[in-house]
């Protein structure tokens, strides 16, 4: 496949007459086995190639994409992109494409994922269903694997190619009012331990009974890693240097300031072999270990190439993965640290309420447990929160060990006081 992608890059280099161009080629091959209510409901396999070319004539840009790679199609691609640029208006924010630079090393595709066969994936699903039968419950989820190879090349000499892989298996187990989910994902299928994942699912499932009614209020919460991933994953969307500088986000004038809780740090790492990453972005910004928040100080924000040039700084690619360093407090110890509280497994349907203040809303999902006097008491109904993530970090009371919760997220368990629940639902 590497030869095919390189050949496309050569073809574009030889035939594209634009002043400047950026080419992105992505080959993907996927197998997805979806199951619900103890049976496979969807089963999908196939590969695709997407070729995206942005061209520039005299500061005027135009782009095109196709998913065919024969010479005629590539000629059409170049012609369409070039004609679009020629007919366009000049872009005052055009920045010449990235030139040659060294490509950082990232952990690529894993053989075990690439060679995982459909029969084995169905076996994983069957084992998940057998577990559900044993618990007189139903299970729904997805077992999937993906392989991807990506090439970026520019007229100015940037050339990079990488591959990566993804394996994921998720299970939502449901019986009457009890409903909970566990998922696992990694670039390397070899790290997957089915029985461990099923064991975790069963433990979580068994901890939940028929939910008792619980009214919304400000209360201490233990946010488990998957909940934290959902909650802080939104920062990847909202933390942007230009948006902050132009006054649209809560981070305006906060760079270098102690804006988060002092115990809170957030980073993206390419050096961590557990975390999936890619060595460069589609606009050829190379990746590096980047601290976004360091001990509560807003240290960096993703910055695109235009804004970086305007400010005279280096561009910073977006958050490809997220790492929140943890501490050494166990969940059992957290239960003792506050008189009462809730344990949250996951959140769901998080949306921005107020972009300027950074306020979010969302629901709990997959089981909420009430605890008091150091012990878990019972499950409660799901609740709606309205909260501001950076303010939440100022209310951290304790942090657990950071663990891999998805292939792109390494998170701890957090104990946070006064989490703002504003509504409840009836399950």
């Amino acid at each position, binding site marked *: 496949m590497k030869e095919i992608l390189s050949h496309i890059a050569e073809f574009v280099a030889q035939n594209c007459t634009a002043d400047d161009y950026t080419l992105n080629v992505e080959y993907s091959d996927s197998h*997805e086995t979806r199951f*619900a*209510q103890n*049976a*496979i409901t*969807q*089963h*999908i*396999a*196939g*590969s*695709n190639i*997407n070729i995206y070319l*942005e061209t520039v004539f005299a500061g005027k840009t135009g*782009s*095109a*994409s*196709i*998913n065919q790679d024969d010479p005629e199609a590539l000629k059409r691609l170049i012609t369409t992109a070039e004609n*679009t*640029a020629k*007919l*366009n208006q000049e*872009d005052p*924010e055009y920045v010449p494409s990235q030139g040659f630079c060294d490509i950082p090393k990232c952990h690529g595709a894993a053989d075990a994922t690439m060679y995982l066969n*459909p029969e084995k994936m*169905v076996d994983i*699903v*069957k084992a998940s269903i057998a577990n559900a039968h044993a618990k007189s419950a139903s299970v*729904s*989820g*997805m077992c*999937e694997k993906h392989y991807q190879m990506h090439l970026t090349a520019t007229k100015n000499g940037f050339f990079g190619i990488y591959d990566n892989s993804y394996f994921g298996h*998720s*299970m939502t187990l449901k019986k009457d009012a009890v409903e909970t989910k566990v998922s696992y994902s990694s670039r390397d299928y070899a790290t997957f331990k089915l029985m461990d994942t099923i064991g975790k699912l069963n433990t979580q499932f068994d901890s939940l009974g028929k939910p008792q009614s619980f009214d919304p209020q400000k209360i201490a919460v233990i946010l488990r890693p998957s909940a934290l991933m959902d909650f802080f994953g939104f920062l990847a969307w909202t933390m942007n240097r230009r948006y902050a500088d*132009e*006054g*649209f986000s809560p981070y305006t004038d906060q760079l270098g300031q102690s804006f988060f809780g002092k115990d809170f740090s957030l980073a993206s790492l390419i050096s961590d072999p557990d975390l999936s990453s890619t060595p460069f972005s589609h606009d050829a910004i190379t990746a590096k270990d980047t601290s976004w928040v360091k001990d509560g100080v807003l240290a960096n924000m993703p910055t695109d190439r235009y804004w970086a040039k305007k400010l005279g700084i280096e561009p910073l690619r977006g958050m490809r993965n997220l790492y929140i360093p943890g501490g050494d407090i166990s969940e059992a110890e957290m239960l003792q640290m506050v008189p009462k509280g809730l344990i949250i497994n996951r959140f*769901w*349907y998080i*949306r921005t*309420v*107020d*972009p*300027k*203040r950074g*306020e979010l*809303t969302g*629901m709990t*999902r997959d089981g909420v447990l009430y605890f008091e006097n150091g012990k878990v008491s019972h499950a409660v109904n799901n609740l*709606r929160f*309205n909260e*501001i993530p950076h303010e939440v970090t100022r209310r951290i009371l304790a942090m657990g060990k950071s663990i891999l919760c998805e292939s792109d997220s390494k998170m701890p368990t957090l104990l946070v006081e006064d989490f*703002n629940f*504003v*509504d*409840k*639902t*009836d*399950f």
Partner: protein
Amino acid sequence: MKYLDLALNEAEILGADYADIRIQKTTSQSIYLQNQSLKQTSNQVLDGYGIRIFKDGAWGFAHSNVYSAEAVQKTVKRAFEIAKLSATAKKGAGLCLAPERSYIASHKTPMSIDPFSVPLSEKVALMLEVNRILKSYEGIRQAVFYLIMNRDEKLFASTLGTRLELSNTFIDPIIVATAVTAEDSQSRTFDEGGRAIGWEWIESLDLTEKAKQIAQEALIKVKAETLGAEQRRSLILDPNHLGLTMHESVGHPTELDRVLGWEADFAGISFATPEKLGNYQYGSKIVNFVGDNTLPQGLATNGFDDDGVPGQKWHIIKDGILQEYGSTRDTAMEIGLGYSRGCNRATYYFDQPINRIPNLYLLPGKEPLTPGQLIADTEDGVYIQGRGSFSIDQHRINFQFGGDFFWEIKDGKLYRPLKKVLYKSCNPEFWNSCDAICDERYWRPFGVVNCGKGQPSQTARMTHGSAPARFRNIRVGGSQ
């Protein structure tokens, strides 16, 4: 197309119980303009085919972008092998497909001016002018115009004997003005959600006037007050806002695959379970929801769905009572329906079609009623225009919505503009609190072009519609 017959013959030789092939070419043009900078002017083509094989009560789906006899045969074989594997993990006898007849038909989105034939320079000139108008208002920090045009051309054939040629086009212009002060930043958006129509729609919209309106309203909004503490009030919701509310609180709960639990792991399930059909008071007696995949200019008006089932019109809620779901050939039989409502749609050729929301709308009130009369009849309430923050639980019961522009109503008049208004409610409280709907003169359609669902995720399109409606005794307040 020779590959249609080749695929189906191959599937029958292999022993498929049912098979179809969907050759789909998706062409789109997107232009993104931000503060006079053309961030993206792009023409995209995705071209390939997906083959579904139904064998022993289970599905297999394989796709390819390679057009050759060998590739088609290989893809059929792959889909068949996958179907056989799926059948080893089925429940009971597996799935059944609702009966359907064969069709030889075509459908094309009616339009006067093909949006792809309009010169790029004309589109960009309009966008730049709108952008310039927005930026001419002091205090508007960011002006965005995003224009997308999309065409799906499909050839569909199935072992039932169906042969379809479908071509569906839509346009979606979105304009955003963002005002910034030292204390706040607020946006106002023009977004009708897209329509299946030609460029003549854009010409009829008078977007330069719309630009002035949203720039002025963004400036009003950023300086507006907030509502303060939550309390129970009346809500008057405009059709654009209601489009999203009904999408989340009626459209998704009445997708039959959710009802059956097929989305339990990701998008969620539904409280609107089959035993409620025909007896559940989903809304007040004036609440009538219709699924209608024949709606002119509707984004889900495709002639046929990706099961080869024709577009239909039916009541989902009648006189407030839950009547029926949006269904597909495989979900319908799970509740013994015996026929599909034609809601199986895929986004791209490489997507296996899934149960989607049809065009779904709230019928207008039967008595003459204008928005002005509705406001005049409201003592204490909030009027919400446009779409804002939205979130709903995974059973589709509890929800919280914002909006795009707000007016406080006092003593039957628009009293003052507001910002950051939120309302919280749940099913069935919300729709049962609906006590007035304006008449058909004020009914308007609004599209949704980005309905995310499924694993792997797909983005579907459908149109909603309503006249302005009032909801009593809803919890309404300012954000935190």
